[in-house]
């Protein structure tokens, strides 16, 4: 991207290049999610259906954890809602950057909104206008990757083994660190990160998942609001 591009990189190719690390990191998790679901008594068809319509790693892992028969529908739906409520903040933050998309493109495209492709879209929007092709290709590729690999995990089951062995579980954390560093907005970001990190760790320890996500996020947001504004003229 640093080369003096005479012919700019096509949007779809930039989207695939940017989302590839997240897709590779997602493979072992999707497979693990599928394998765990089978162990809990779901069928491969049900695993496939869940990944297809829910497409939310954290929520699916939590759901499989509490899955039993008879199916605790209410608990599953509440847990899913709590873990995914952060999407509301993400969508609100992204909305002003989606002006190149039509209303149907936004509504369909946001079906694939997830932490990784959202953060990449934010990063892209910070340097150039977000195109429909970039946003939709990235989202669909990430979604299809999750669906396919969770089905692979469901079919191969315990043959795949523990992703911790190869450090694959840390790839998720490393991606998030890189995204946070690239999204930082100056000196105030350090305080925002500290407030969010400490609150999340504390709440995770004292109350438990998934409350740490919402409380940590709120702490960071409040910290940003309370801090003195850097440049009085800038908005």
């Amino acid at each position: 991207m640093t080369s003096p591009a005479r012919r700019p990189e096509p949007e779809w190719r930039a989207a695939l290049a940017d989302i590839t690390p997240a897709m590779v990191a997602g493979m072992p998790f999707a497979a693990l999610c599928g394998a765990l679901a089978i162990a809990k008594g779901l069928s491969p068809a049900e695993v496939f259906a869940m990944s297809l319509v829910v497409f939310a790693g954290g929520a699916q892992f939590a759901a499989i954890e509490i899955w039993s028969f008879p199916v605790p529908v209410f608990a599953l739906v509440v847990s899913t809602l709590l873990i995914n409520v952060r999407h509301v903040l993400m969508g609100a933050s992204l909305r002003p950057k989606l002006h190149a998309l039509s209303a149907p493109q936004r509504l369909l495209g946001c079906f694939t909104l997830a932490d990784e492709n959202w953060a990449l879209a934010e990063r892209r929007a910070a340097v150039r206008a977000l195109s429909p092709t970039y946003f939709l290709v990235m989202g669909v590729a990430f979604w299809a990757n999750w669906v396919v690999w969770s089905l692979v995990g469901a079919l191969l089951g315990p043959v795949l083994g523990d992703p911790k062995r190869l450090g694959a579980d840390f790839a998720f954390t490393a991606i998030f660190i890189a995204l946070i560093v690239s999204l930082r907005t100056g000196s105030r970001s350090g305080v925002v990160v500290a407030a969010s990190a400490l609150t999340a760790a504390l709440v995770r320890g004292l109350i438990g998942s998934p409350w740490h996500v919402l409380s940590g996020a709120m702490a960071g947001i409040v910290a940003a609001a309370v801090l003195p504004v850097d440049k009085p003229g800038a908005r």
Partner: protein
Amino acid sequence: MRLDGTTVLAITLMGLVTYLTRIAGLFIAGRFRLEGRAKAAFDAIPVSVLTAVIAPTLLTSSVAESLAGIVTIVAAFRLSLLGTVAVGVATVVLLRLVFG
């Protein structure tokens, strides 16, 4: 190919509430004109959410995770996304060997 009725209901409702969280933000945004502190708070959303998701793992799970986190943060200031992930994963594998 087996699909249980209650399971399908649960999956459908899980998908529905998740989709609602994904599009709700689209309708909230744009109703306000953000300035000053409100804008600062709004701009902090991405970093705040991402930090909250990973912080417990980095701060409280193990020495290997915490140290690998520091190495990864340093790498993130110098390397591409893929390079950062490679350094982070290699470091955590090594440190888990060291610290058991």
